[in-house]
């Protein structure tokens, strides 16, 4: 049996039946990492000894009959999640040797179930980017075609799932950072409702937009992982008190009644956007037909302010980032420039040498936009646009249950193709950003393969806290679409 091909649900089943052990499963993934990760570069940190110890512990728990859903399941974590005793870098030089004294709440949840935390995945530095090229350490390659980016910022997590280095992975999504790499890597990525998953211990990029979510092989695994990760956390004031349903019920719902009764909306503003790859358009058209075949009603809807989402996002996120990243000052932890003669020089040199160019760019944009005299024109205006975008969605969801769009305007681009052109890079988030601005959940499900052999994803968005509809429709779509086989290697 090729253990690395198992989904979480399959592995869970076999572990429970004691047909496989967590140690064997973990070893299978570690072997693949050993063999292929020098090509893919999905991980910043892998500690095989620690992973195997966790696997042994999991096997003991299973033997004692104390098994839970994720006991013994090897999972990768984006290196933005704090892990007690294991270095957490955010793919930044400034945190290259930082070892947290605490676990993120999400990490605690995996540990509480004796999951195996197999490694810390590469990302764009501080989650700022759409290609994982902004990692201070190395570029992650797309397992479908290693000349291409895996997307970002959770590119390491998505590539690790696609390369079958782990059963599933945790990512974070501030403007599409789960959905876009999932789309580019042919896997499923779910950004939950803002507040659904605790942000405690997740190094902040833009606090009002950041959300933690699963990247998995299929929708079933995503539902299972959300079950584990979600729920109110008293350590996060923005975490929602909402009840946590069992999201796998969305799958049961599909099996029971399909998608009948569901209305799907397609924003007319998205259809006529410039710069959308014709293959993405073709994929979207055929996805629409597939869904129609499942009995849904499809409607054209309007998100009138969606044109301003990119502009608003690239003010709000940098503003928050400029404050969030202020703490990396070389005083208490992380990189410090040791050649400075005074405090101000130390601050300047530490930040100039510790942060990469994209991070510095966003800190500067944010600092400028919040400055006295500019606040109203930038942060103030962007916040107003954000409120209008929220209203757009509210109105849209009066008419439909799910909003459909492509995840990204193009399949994964080539490494280096957009590095020199940040604006084009920013536009690649055009379909995913408004979801974060509105705080609603969104999912990326593999929908097709381009003529060049790269996967493309379909995005579905739903009302606040209605991830259930995304699981139900996502699962239905996944079953109906031609099965997308991950690349062999």
């Amino acid at each position: 049996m090729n253990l690395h091909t198992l989904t979480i649900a399959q592995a869970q089943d076999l572990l429970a039946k004691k047909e496989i052990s967590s140690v064997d499963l973990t070893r299978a993934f570690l072997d693949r990492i050993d063999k292929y990760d020098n090509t893919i570069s999905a991980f910043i940190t892998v500690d095989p000894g620690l992973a195997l110890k966790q696997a042994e512990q999991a096997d003991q728990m299973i033997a004692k009959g104390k098994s839970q859903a994720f006991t013994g399941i090897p999972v990768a974590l984006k290196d933005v999640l704090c892990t007690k005793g294991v270095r957490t870098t955010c793919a930044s030089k400034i945190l290259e040797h930082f070892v947290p004294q605490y676990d993120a709440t999400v990490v605690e949840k995996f540990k509480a179930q004796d999951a195996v935390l197999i490694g810390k995945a590469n990302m764009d530095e501080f989650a700022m980017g759409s290609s994982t090229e902004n990692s201070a350490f190395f570029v992650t390659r797309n397992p479908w075609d290693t000349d291409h980016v895996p997307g970002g910022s959770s590119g390491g997590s998505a590539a690790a799932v696609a390369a079958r280095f782990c059963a599933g992975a945790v990512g974070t999504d501030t403007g599409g950072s789960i959905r876009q790499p999932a789309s580019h890597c042919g896997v499923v990525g779910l950004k939950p409702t803002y507040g659904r998953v605790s942000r405690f211990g997740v190094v902040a990029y833009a606090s009002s937009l950041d959300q933690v979510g699963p990247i998995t092989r299929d929708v079933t695994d995503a539902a299972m992982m959300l079950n584990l990760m979600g729920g109110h956390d008293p350590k996060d004031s923005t975490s929602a008190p909402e009840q946590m349903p069992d999201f796998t019920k969305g799958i049961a719902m599909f099996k029971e009644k399909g998608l009948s009764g569901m209305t799907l909306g397609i924003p007319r503003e998205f259809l006529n956007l410039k710069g959308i790859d014709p293959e993405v358009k073709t994929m979207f058209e055929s996805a629409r037909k597939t869904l129609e075949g499942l009995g849904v009603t499809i409607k054209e809807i309007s998100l009138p302010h969606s044109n301003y989402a990119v502009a608003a996002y690239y003010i709000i996120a940098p503003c928050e980032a400029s404050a969030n990243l202020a703490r990396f000052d070389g005083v208490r932890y992380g990189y410090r420039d040791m050649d400075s003669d005074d405090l101000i020089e130390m601050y300047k040199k530490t930040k100039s040498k510790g942060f990469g160019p994209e991070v510095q760019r966003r800190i500067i944009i944010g600092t400028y936009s919040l400055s006295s005299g500019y606040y109203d024109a930038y942060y103030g205006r962007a916040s107003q646009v954000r409120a209008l975008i929220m209203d757009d969605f509210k109105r849209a969801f009066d008419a439909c249950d799910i909003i459909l769009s492509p995840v990204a305007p193009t399949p994964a681009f080539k490494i280096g193709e957009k590095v020199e052109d940040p604006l084009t890079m920013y536009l690649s988030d055009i379909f995913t950003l408004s979801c974060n601005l509105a705080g609603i959940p969104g999912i990326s499900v593999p929908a097709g393969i381009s003529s060049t052999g790269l996967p493309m994803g379909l995005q579905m968005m739903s009302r606040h806290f209605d991830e259930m509809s995304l699981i139900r429709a996502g699962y239905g779509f996944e079953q109906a679409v031609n099965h997308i086989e991950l690349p062999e290697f």
Partner: protein
Amino acid sequence: MAFEPVIGLEVHAQLKTKTKIFCSCSTAFGKSPNANTCPVCTGMPGVLPVLNKQAVTFAIKAGLATNCTINRESRFDRKNYFYPDLPKGYQISQFAMPIAEHGFLDIEADGTEKRIGITRIHMEEDAGKLIHDPLRGKSMVDLNRTGVPLIEIVSEPDLRTASQAGAYLRKLHAILKYIDVCDGNMEQGSFRCDANVSLRPVGQEKFGTRTELKNLNSFKNVEKAILYEIQRQTYVLEEGGEVIQETRLWDPTKNRSASMRGKEEAHDYRYFPDPDLVPLIVDDAWIQDVRAGMPELPEEKKQRFITAYNLSEYDAAVLTADLDMANFFEQTITPLKNIKQAANWIMTTLMGMLNAKAIEISESPVSAHEFSKLLGLLESSRINANAAKTVFEQMIETGQDPESIVKEKGLEQVSDQGELEGMVDEIIQENPDEVQAYRDGKTKLFSFFMGQVMKKTRGKADPKVVTPMLKSKL
């Protein structure tokens, strides 16, 4: 040209919560550096603030006690600046929507009453402190104070004199102590004051350029620094110069202030709403709860002292200016009948002793209970006023109780009719000339005879017995 000073005060008061405003670290003072810290208050990556409800309750209490409107919704903002004692690179504060606004305090100064507006009260976290080691050329950071809850109380620019500023500050200080939300310790920095001072020609409405005074760590320094600043600005303006907008640091040893930073060096704090905290919603029930638990405030206590104890307005004001003093007074008079006498003893003898020792009533070597016993002895005529002073001094020195001091020193009053009569007779016999002069109309000599009696009894004769006796015999 005559100038009118315009003064506004900004007071930072540390709230007396057990734990910090956004984490569960202790707020205890005087711990070893960084003992009271955790990942949240040291600004580690990924951690999040969670608001301390008790701090909110205290802020509401302060708002109600200073006649403010409590905002049903307020918000926390980030105030961005870099300094090693500020771990996150921003301070969480309330900028656009503070918890309380539009209050006032009535003060008495320069012989008149005045209402001083309170613009706003907002909540924020304190910063840490730097310890400089010049010998090693290093600076160390202590984050124990980081995240201790503060309220900042901003007055309207309604104050016109240094003494008004002093009166406002003392009143505010008393109120915060009365409602038990701040320990008021100015030396430890739990109650800190900055002053904004400007001058304008009398009759002009527009404010002049202001300066901000910092490091005013006592009531006296606040008044002195404001007086100095008024004089300085008057001098500058009279010489035809211009006041520069700047922050000035008061030097209490040199009794003068010096420029700390000018307008061009002023920070741009880039305030924006803190996305890690949700809007603070205070409902009516919460406000009602706080109102219900509100203790008697200085003004109410003063009125009660006037009516219940028949004290003068002045005495009641002095005794209620400080909560500990008011409590001392009330405990003292519980078993006593002569309240006026007790009030006088507290305001002269006791307060004189406190002033001489430069200590607070809470540090008094004589407790209210012991002090009450002393006044009891006076009230029942077992000792006279002179003896009582002697006993009080002995109490401070040795901590003994008044009863045993009286016994030990034989200070008990002589009230025995027979004993005193014999003495009075002797004195009349021994001083025939004075007796004659008294009888001829020199009644002032009465005190001479009284003095003779006191001399014979070494001050212990009861004047209430001796006076009528002397009068009849003479």
